[in-house]
């Protein structure tokens, strides 16, 4: 993709590695769609969902929450000072969701039937229906929200201005849809109380998932802006470069506060089902690692970073929190799921599954770079300076 962009630096180490990953990805794709899941995954009748759901779907959607969080902050809560963060966030979200849908094609048995739930046979009692509907709608919403950038790039003034008029509606719609499917992803597991370890199973699962999604969103925006700051420095205008610090502080503060709240409701979750005694077990230890290491700790580190204006701490905490989200989603979808089965029946991903996931992430990074190097994401387009 980016190859033809700049011939002189075609064979930078980054490009070479990315290229290799992409090639591997394509080969694995062929295997997946000719030999089936059996040949490419460790999925079994006991473990029907693996890495492609646990990471590509659950983590993917969570980390793409930056879109609605930022746009809500700026347009609904009127925090204009973060305006420069909206477009990158929207773009990340858009790519995130696009890749989620892309990844789903690998996981489901008959990808071409993915529209069936909406057009052929509506299983409205299923939370997966609800998730599907929201993701589909939100993906289109994100596309529209993102389109102005593309239009500015292509110079479609009229269309661009028209879409910009819709910003408010789209934002609110985006928040609604996100609220729904972010929480419903957690609600997916409500139907299997006998399979998910009591420490992670809770009737509050949907709420937990929604709250964590906002945490993920806030942290991801910081994380992503940090990366852009590092690698796309030359693509950023003063507003973005300047905004970067304020963003980290503002979003860091928010993240810390939400994490604190999350810690509280998680504790209440344990109390609600009286699961205290499980804390003594092996799973309990791991649960505590998640709670203290990936919730309490980042909450504190964020706070520290915000108090003494230490951007470095905030950025590393953001990265750590993002990892925390990964851990949480992995726990629910894989580690604590089927806890009752003997270890011989437990699931661990096949290298090809990991390969595909890495491939998809790489594609994401490449597309992100491709767009940022061309469209007005990290800078404001001269013709559309706001005044």
């Amino acid at each position, binding site marked *: 993709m980016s190859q033809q962009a700049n011939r002189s630096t075609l064979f930078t180490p980054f490009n070479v590695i990315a290229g290799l990953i992409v090639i591997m990805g394509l080969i694995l794709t062929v295997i997946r769609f000719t030999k089936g899941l059996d040949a490419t995954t460790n999925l079994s009748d006991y473990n029907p969902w693996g890495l492609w759901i646990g990471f590509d779907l659950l983590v993917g959607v969570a980390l793409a929450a930056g879109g609605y969080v930022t746009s809500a902050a700026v*347009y609904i809560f009127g925090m204009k000072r973060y305006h420069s963060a909206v477009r990158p966030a929207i773009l990340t979200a858009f790519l995130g969701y696009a890749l989620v849908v892309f990844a789903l094609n690998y996981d489901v*048995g008959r990808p071409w039937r993915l529209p069936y739930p909406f057009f052929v046979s509506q*299983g409205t009692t299923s939370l997966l229906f609800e998730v599907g509907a929201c993701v589909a709608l939100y993906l289109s919403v994100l596309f529209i929200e993102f389109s102005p950038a593309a239009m500015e790039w292509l110079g479609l003034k009229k269309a661009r201005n028209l879409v910009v008029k819709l910003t408010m509606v789209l934002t609110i719609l985006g928040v*609604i849809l996100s609220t729904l499917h972010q929480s419903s992803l957690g609600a997916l597991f409500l139907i299997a109380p006998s399979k998910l370890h009591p420490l992670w199973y809770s009737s509050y699962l949907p709420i937990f998932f929604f709250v964590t999604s906002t945490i993920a969103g806030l942290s991801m925006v910081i994380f992503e802006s940090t990366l852009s700051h590092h690698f796309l420095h030359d693509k950023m205008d003063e507003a973005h470069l300047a905004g970067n610090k304020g963003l980290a502080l503002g979003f860091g503060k928010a993240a810390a506060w939400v994490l604190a709240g999350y810690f509280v409701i998680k504790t209440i979750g344990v109390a609600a089902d009286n699961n205290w005694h499980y804390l003594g077990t092996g799973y309990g230890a791991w649960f505590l690692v998640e709670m203290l290491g990936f919730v309490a700790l980042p909450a504190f580190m964020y706070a520290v970073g915000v108090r003494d204006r230490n951007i470095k701490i905030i950025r590393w905490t953001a990265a750590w929190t993002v990892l925390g989200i990964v851990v949480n989603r992995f726990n629910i979808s894989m580690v604590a799921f089927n806890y009752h089965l003997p270890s011989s029946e437990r699931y661990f991903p096949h290298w090809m599954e990991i390969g595909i996931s890495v491939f998809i992430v790489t594609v994401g990074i490449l597309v992100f770079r491709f767009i940022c190097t061309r469209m007005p994401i990290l800078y404001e387009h001269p013709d559309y300076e706001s005044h």
Partner: protein
Amino acid sequence: MSISRRKFLGWMGAASLTSAVGTSARAASNHEFKGYEDSMAVLHDITRCIGCRKCEGACNTVNDLPKPEKPFDDLTVLEEKRRTTAKAYTVVNQFGGQAPTFVKKQCNHCQEPACASACFVKAFTKTPEGAVVYNEKVCVGCRYCMIACPFEIPAYEYDEPFTPRIMKCTMCYPRITKGLLPGCVEACPTEALVFGKRQALLKVARQRIADYPDRYVDHIYGEKEMGGTNWLYLTSKPYGEVGMREDLGNTPAPKLTKGALGAVPMVVGLWPVLLTGIYAINKRKEKIAAEEQHAAVDEAVAQTNAEAEAKLAAAMEKAAQNQEAAVAREVKKALEEAAKAAAEAEAAKDEKGSDAPDGTSEDA
């Protein structure tokens, strides 16, 4: 697609119509659904099972599934613990070494099937006959049903790249609708499996427990589990010891997700109100702020002008007593000052004015 869209619309019509007319399912929140009264069921009396695997064989033939590598009269298979797979709708497991107990495992045909509740294309249907049947014509292969099933029954054709199906016992739906017995029941030499109306079989089970109190555990597995199943079990050993989970609870699967699903329309209804409200409030705040700024500026301007005039007046008076030369100089000076002040004020005003549109430009 066109057909399907027509379907969709038709369904919309039907739905809205019925909702208008009011359907027969007038269910208050405390209403309990009893399932189909005359649904059929199978009673599996574990104490009678001799582990001959005839049921497995029959199941394999009537559903023409691939032949297994070990034949069905090879009982060594029983030694390792098995589950249902895409190639075997039912398996018999052995528990305990001396005087072992044998337990048949297959789809329990829940009265409120978790698979059906979980499926986002309605691929599973609970038929009035009691069977839970699967329709591969719509299945997308998401395998959520396998996640949902508390008995870990549905299996998936992982080796099938293009048309993978979910595979599970159908209670021999095609056969029972023809008035035949399910394959396994017909083949069972000891009637460890008995096929009949669920209500009747429950009576039979209770009677057996009453007649032979020291042979049976006083519990019919499947009467209440997960809201009740159409496959019922009797046993002499505790169910936990013969590989059946006793911690599933009696909540029917749809109830587990009812709350979450119920929250969805509330969000759709209230979020717009909430968010737009917040937005409007912020907008209002900005408006007021902007107006206050304007007011302040005007005042400032007025003030400076006033001062200028005062100065001018004073100067005139002075001039009256002084000679022209001095007068002329004074007046000139004063006028300049006034003009300057006014200009500043104007400048300030412009600045503010230019700020106002910023930011708000997007929100229309």
